[in-house]
């Protein structure tokens, strides 16, 4: 399932626009994921210096996905993109165990942001194809996701590279948006 089929599923929604924000540390695989969602080639991806955006529109309904660079230096700019976010997708490099603490800290700061209150959270435990990848359940414990009580959330193991798990994540997004945005 790509963005177009997500759009089709959501079209019965009364709103005319849906905004998805893709965040996560640098090297998590946000841009690769964005390109997979847009069914684009993923063989020549460069580190993101600013942001990338993909939009799909059909019958007056529009879906925008924002992918913002994740370097430590530019994380303070994430907040410029919080306004009117309908779904937050947080991407983790499951094979980068050295930075689990750093990614956990950034996520907990995001969840305290006023502008993101109640915004549903999908955590993509990306790079499951790599040898050293932690499982979704290890990451759930490590990030203390079970303590999240103010929003719907889901963790989905995936590999943007092999495309496994990506569709399941989007299914959850479409289900969640439909039930919370009426």
């Amino acid at each position, binding site marked *: 399932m790509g963005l177009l089929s997500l759009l089709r599923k959501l079209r019965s929604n009364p709103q005319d626009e849906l905004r998805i924000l893709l965040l996560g540390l*640098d090297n998590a695989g946000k841009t690769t994921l964005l390109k997979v969602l847009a069914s684009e080639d993923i063989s020549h991806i460069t*580190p993101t210096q600013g942001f990338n955006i993909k939009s799909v529109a059909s019958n007056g309904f529009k879906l925008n996905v924002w992918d913002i660079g994740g370097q430590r230096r530019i994380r303070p700019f994430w907040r410029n993109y919080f306004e009117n976010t309908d779904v937050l997708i947080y991407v983790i490099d499951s094979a980068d165990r050295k930075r689990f603490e750093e990614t956990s800290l950034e996520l907990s700061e995001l969840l305290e942001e006023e502008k993101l209150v109640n915004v549903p959270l999908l955590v993509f435990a990306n*790079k*499951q194809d790599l040898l050293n990848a932690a499982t979704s359940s290890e990451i759930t414990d490590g990030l203390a996701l079970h303590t999240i009580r103010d929003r719907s*959330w889901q963790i989905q193991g*995936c590999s943007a590279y092999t495309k496994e798990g990506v569709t399941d994540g989007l299914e959850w997004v479409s289900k969640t948006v439909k039930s919370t945005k009426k």
Partner: protein
Amino acid sequence: MGCLFSNPDTSTDILEPPKPQYSCKINKNDYILDKLKDQTIFRVPGTVDGQQFIIQNCENCTIYIFDHTGQVQIDDCKHCRIFVGPVHGSIFIRDSENCNLATICQQFRARDCHEVNIFLSCASQPIIESSHHIRFGCLTYFYEKLGEHYATAGISPYNNNWSNIHDFTPVPDSKNYSLMDDSETVFKHIPAPTDPSCSHLNISDSQDQTITPFSYGELYREHNVERCFVVLFHEANYDVCARELIKMLRPLKIVLVQSKCYTINELSADRIFNNRSYNTLVTKDFVSQNSTDAVQQLDKFYNFASMQMFS
């Protein structure tokens, strides 16, 4: 289970895609070098075979990975010399100092490093963050199978952006990185392995044998000298032709500033060459007719190439 006070009907659970089944058992520790001191380690072709590789907490080690990998992390290393063959994804070096690294990758990233020399063949724009005294040079390297490993990792030796660095934390009036010219060689910083079990790899860093052509990149981009734009159209022996051309130019003191390997559609061909006859081309080679044309064509081609890189 997650708690969903706002929406108790939807359940949250943890979903994992099935783990791939390997025919033979893989020992993760074969792909992690941790806490080594004063050692020389090498991996010959076929032993890593596209897996992720991690090098961490090593001191005064010499490490050679003569194979292709999926993703590489180098963390907390000091005084190490490291060669890593083609990386399909990113190579990320962090919290390391006084190291020498030579590598081929789709993405190069460095954070919290200092005093590091990097010989690079990188398909995208290399980036650094919170680092200083980083020196970049163009990789020149050969070992048996390197050409194959380039192809398996999905990287073209002609798309090397080794000198076009993006610094996320620039400092005013100074630079966190500098560029090395060809007076610095890989072997000067990372000598070839002496172990006899590597001798069949015929390892070399010479410009005559390298798989990655030596290019001057940003060292020459702004030089106000005569320039020429040469296009080899895709055919079975384009690689042989390109190598032969580069070899012929060297004794003539004509330097290669940059090479690129891209698919060009008709619209782009029209724009770059300013000449419709090349739209149907595809088998002819192209050389600028005069230097004014060359400058314009180069600008257009670089614009096109960077759009390809960032699209």
